[in-house]
């Protein structure tokens, strides 16, 4: 049995380690081959970028060597896939190799595409890459006051990020003693301040209490970077002095080029995690088109379900459970307090009042992530 994982991010790494442990006897006996193909020899802890933009984490804290995170049973190669030949059960790589498989897992993730909105890349600060998070950190340090507008593109990775950056900016400016010189203005694409209704019901009065203004049904259409004006699909326009963007995302280019799904998101069965029409191809994380949060937590739980199921296919001949859509997202509500949202396909979240304890749990998780990626937590 040849199992091939394409993608070495959080989903691919947790799944690979999970399978390497579950299938250790079969791998040792040569009955199972477990491979992983990735575009990079480095693994980034992406949630750390939010902290880096505010000067609370440094670039070196975000990375580990990918090989150091993997169980020895995984044949890891840095050689990105260029062609998915699903009818032949094989992929071809940039390095010119062909890898045949019996089971394929696609976990290539998503990427920010600020260029989809005219003027956004030039006019806005963002924190979704190391380079842009560093740029935003420097811009914030030199900012002395004015109107700060938060703009949210769709779809985006980490649904809590718009709220988190807004609350954290409030404390950042307060600590610098210039909060009274800053107007914080939050915009959001739908008719409330967050997609999760219970979270929106909690966040809106918090905005009122902290003096953060907000505007809903606001989908970014274009940015006049010279005139410093943000315009919406709905006909709105907002002046800004500093624009912070949660950019829209697409799936990876290789998914689009291989025509596996619109926008680079692959049609996926939400309980089986199989690609539509392809029972031996699984898709997890941001790569799917499942209507669920694009978040590390989402793929963490998907990887655990899939690990159990693929191991069961090897050992029992069939998968053993359906995925329930579990998500657990921390929500930083400032510099020193946090809450969380936990939900699945059938049960909505019930967020609790923020506490310092949950914030420190998140701080601990920022370090514990590496044990999570190794499949230990």
């Amino acid at each position, binding site marked *: 049995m040849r199992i091939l994982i394409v993608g070495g991010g959080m989903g691919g790494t947790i799944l690979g380690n999970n399978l390497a442990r579950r299938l250790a006897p079969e791998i040792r006996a040569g009955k199972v081959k477990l491979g992983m193909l990735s575009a990079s020899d480095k693994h980034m802890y992406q949630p750390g970028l939010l902290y880096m933009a505010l000067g609370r984490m440094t670039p070196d804290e975000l990375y580990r060597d990918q090989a150091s995170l993997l169980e020895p049973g995984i044949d890891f190669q840095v050689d990105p896939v260029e062609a998915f030949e699903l009818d032949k059960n094989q992929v071809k790589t940039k390095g010119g190799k062909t890898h045949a498989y019996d089971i394929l897992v696609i976990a290539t993730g998503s990427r920010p595409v600020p260029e*989809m909105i005219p003027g956004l890349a030039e006019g806005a600060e963002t924190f979704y890459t190391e380079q842009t998070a560093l740029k935003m950190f420097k811009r914030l340090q030199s900012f002395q006051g004015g109107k700060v507008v938060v703009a949210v593109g*769709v*779809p985006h990775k980490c*649904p809590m990020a718009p709220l988190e950056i807004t609350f954290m900016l409030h404390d950042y400016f307060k600590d610098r003693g210039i909060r009274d010189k800053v107007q914080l203005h939050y915009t959001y*694409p*739908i*008719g409330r301040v967050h*997609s*999760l*209704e219970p979270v929106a019901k909690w966040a809106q009065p918090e905005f009122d209490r902290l003096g953060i203004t907000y505007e809903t*049904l606001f*989908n970014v259409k274009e940015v006049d970077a010279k005139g410093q004006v943000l315009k919406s*699909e*709905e*006909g709105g326009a907002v002046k800004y002095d500093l624009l912070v963007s949660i950019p*829209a995302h*697409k799936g990876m280019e290789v998914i689009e080029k291989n025509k596996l799904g*619109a*926008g680079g998101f692959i049609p996926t069965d939400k309980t089986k995690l199989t690609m539509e029409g392809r029972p031996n191809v699984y898709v997890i994380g941001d790569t799917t088109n499942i*209507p*669920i*949060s694009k978040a590390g937590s989402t793929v963490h739980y998907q990887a655990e379900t899939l690990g159990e199921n693929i191991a069961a296919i090897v050992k029992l001949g069939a998968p053993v459970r359906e995925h329930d*859509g579990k*998500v657990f997202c921390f929500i930083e509500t400032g510099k020193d307090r946090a809450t969380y*949202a936990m*939900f699945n*396909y*059938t049960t*909505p*979240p019930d967020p609790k009042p923020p506490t310092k304890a949950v914030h420190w749990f998140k701080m601990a998780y920022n370090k514990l992530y590496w044990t999570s990626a190794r499949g230990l937590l």
Partner: protein
Amino acid sequence: MAERIVVDARGSFCPGPLMELIARLKFASVGDEVEVLSTDKGSAADIPEWVKKVGHELLEAREDAGVWHIALKKLK
């Protein structure tokens, strides 16, 4: 003949049916028809309101066995 794209957002709490629709429309062509399936009754009001505000054409909004089917044509 316009393509009808189905966005199955049944049981989606986050990002939810309207956000799923907005996301899918970004990758659709002008003239495409998009149908959202939602089990959130709020969608029956939220989605038509947004469609009208942005200027797309609402084709239908009906409930069938607890599932809302809301269809629109992308006009821009």
